[in-house]
C-alpha cells in the first residue's frame, strides 16, 4: 500500500463523507424523534396502517414490522439509511478508478513508481475508510437516538447489534460491485447515474419482492440479504442470503483486481 495515495484519496473524499454522514445522522435522529408519538398511540397507528393496501404495506415492510416497538421502528427507518449508504458506496465504487481516468489524472498517477496493485489497494482502503466513517456516524446516531427517545421501553440489544453490524457488509457489496462494473463497461463518464441506478434499482427490487410475494428477487438484492424486517423478526441474519451477498462481494473484488492489473489506461481522444 502507498500511504501517499491513501492520504490523497481519503482527503479528496472528505467533503463527500461529511455530507453523507450529516444526512445519515439527520435521518436516524430526526426520524427517531417521532418515535415517542408513535409508541404512545399504538392502537391508532395500527388501525391507520391496516387501512393501507396490503401491497403498499408489504413494500414498506409494514406487514412484518411493528413500528410502535423500538426495533420495529428502527428497522423501518433503517431502510432509508441503507438506501443512502448504498448510493454513497456505489459512488465510491464506480468512481474509484473511473473518475481519475475521466479527468485524465490516471496518467499522472500511473507513471509514478507504484504498481497497479498498490494503486488499487491504496484506493480501496481509502474508500473503505471514508465509507466506514459514515457507518460510525450512523452507529453513533443510533445510540444517541435510542438514548434520547425510547422513554424507558425495552428492546433486544443483540438484535440491535446485528442490525448495526449488517451495515458495513451491506455497503461493501455496493462498493465492490460498483468497482467491478466500472471496469467491465468500457468507460464510466459520470458516476452518479450508475450509483443511483444500482442503489435505487436494488431497493425497488427488494420492495417489489415484498409486493409480488414468492418471487425469488431477494436473491439478487442486498436490501433483501440484509432485510431489517427479517432481522428484527428472527433476531438473526438470513444466513444463506448473507453468504450469497459476501460471495458476490468477494467475486466482484477479485474480478476488479484482475481487470485493473491488465487494464489499458485510455488516452486523451
Amino acid at each position, binding site marked *: 500500500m502507498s500511504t501517499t495515495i491513501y492520504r490523497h484519496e481519503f482527503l479528496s473524499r472528505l467533503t463527500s463523507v461529511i455530507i453523507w454522514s450529516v444526512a445519515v445522522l439527520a435521518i436516524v435522529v430526526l426520524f427517531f424523534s417521532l418515535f415517542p408519538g408513535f409508541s404512545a398511540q399504538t392502537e391508532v397507528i395500527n388501525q391507520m396502517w391496516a387501512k393501507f393496501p396490503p401491497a403498499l404495506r408489504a413494500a414498506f415492510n409494514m406487514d412484518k414490522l411493528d413500528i410502535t416497538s423500538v426495533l420495529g421502528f428502527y428497522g423501518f427507518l433503517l431502510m432509508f439509511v441503507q438506501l443512502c449508504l448504498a448510493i454513497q458506496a456505489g459512488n465510491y465504487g464506480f468512481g474509484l478508478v473511473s473518475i481519475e481516468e475521466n479527468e485524465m489524472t*490516471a496518467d499522472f498517477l500511473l507513471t509514478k513508481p507504484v504498481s497497479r496493485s498498490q494503486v488499487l489497494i491504496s484506493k480501496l482502503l481509502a474508500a473503505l475508510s471514508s465509507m466506514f466513517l459514515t457507518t460510525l456516524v450512523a452507529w453513533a446516531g443510533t445510540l444517541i437516538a435510542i438514548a434520547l427517545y425510547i422513554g424507558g421501553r425495552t428492546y433486544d440489544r443483540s438484535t440491535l447489534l446485528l442490525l448495526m453490524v449488517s451495515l458495513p457488509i451491506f455497503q461493501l457489496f455496493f462498493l465492490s460491485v460498483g468497482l467491478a462494473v466500472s471496469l467491465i463497461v468500457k468507460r464510466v463518464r459520470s458516476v452518479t447515474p450508475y450509483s443511483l441506478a444500482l442503489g435505487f434499482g436494488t431497493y425497488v427490487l427488494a420492495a417489489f419482492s415484498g409486493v409480488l410475494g414468492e418471487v425469488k428477487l431477494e436473491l439478487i438484492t442486498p436490501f433483501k440479504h440484509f432485510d431489517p424486517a427479517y432481522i428484527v423478526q428472527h433476531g438473526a441474519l438470513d444466513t444463506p442470503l448473507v453468504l450469497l451477498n459476501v460471495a458476490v462481494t468477494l467475486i466482484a473484488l477479485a474480478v476488479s483486481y484482475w481487470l485493473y492489473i491488465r487494464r489499458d489506461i485510455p488516452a486523451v481522444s
Partner: protein
Amino acid sequence: MSVIEVSNLTKYYGKSRGIVDVSFDVKEGEIFGFIGPNGAGKSTTIRLLLSLIHPTSGSAKVFGKDVVTHGTEIRRDIGYLPSEVFYYEGMKVIDLLKYSASFFPADSTQRMRELSDLMELEMNRRISDLSYGNKKKVGIVQGLLHSPKLLFLDEPTSGLDPLMQRKFFDLIRKENARGVTVFFSSHILGEVQRLCNRVGIIREGKIVEISDIRSLQQNNYKKLRVTGEGLKAADFKLAGVTNVQSDNGTTSFFFKGDINAVLKKLSGMKLDDVSIEEPSLEEIFMHYYE
C-alpha cells in the same frame, strides 16, 4: 548501452491499429526524436513504454528491464511530460508538486524551487485557474523534479510561448548534458531538428526510417536553386531530379545522386545565380509522406 530497446512491438485496440511491428533502440545519453503525423502511433509507443497500456505482441525493455514485468522499478527513473496535461483541478500547484515528489525517495524541494523559478510558475495558484500553457509548465516541473535518467516528452511544446519554448529546450539540453536520455516525440520538425541526434519516423503505426539527423539531411537530397535567363524546367531533365518548380527565371528542384552529374549539367548553362542547400527536415519528411 541501450536505454530503450523495442522489438517487434505491436498494439491493437480491439481491431483498430495502434502500432505494428515497431523496433528501435535508444542509446544512453542521446536525444531521440520520434516524428510522425497525428494518429501515427507516437503516443501509443510512449504509453506502452510507460506500461500505461499493454502490448498485443512483441516486447520492450527500458534500462534493460521488461516494461510489462518491471514497470514499477523502471518508473523510478523516468520523467514523463504528456502532450495534454491534466492534474487534480482542486489542488494548488505546490501541493500537486509535493504529491508528485512524495512518490520518490529523494528530497526534491530545492530542485522544485529552481525549476519553477526557471519556468516562472506561480506555486500558490489552483490548477483549475491555470491557463493551458501554465499547466504545461506544471507538467515540465513535475516531470523533472525527481531528476529522472530518462525523459519521455510527448509533443512537449504545445501551449508554450516561444520564449518559454526556448527556456524549455535549454533545460532539456542541460539535462541531456548531465547524461539524461531523452525520447522526444513531436510533429514539429523544426524543434526535432534543433534538439535531436537521431530520429525515428513513424507513419500509420510503422517505422519508415531511423536515421541520424545529419545523414538524413546529407545523404538524401540537395536542394538546388538556379537563376538564369531563358531557363526552363525541361532543361533539368536528369536522373535523380525531383520536385522541379519554375518561377520567373528561377528554377528549384531536389537532387539525389552523384552531385557531379548535376554540376556538369550546370556548367554548360549561362547562370546568374546558383545555390545548393541541405533540405530542411520538413522537406525530407514530406517526401516520406507522399
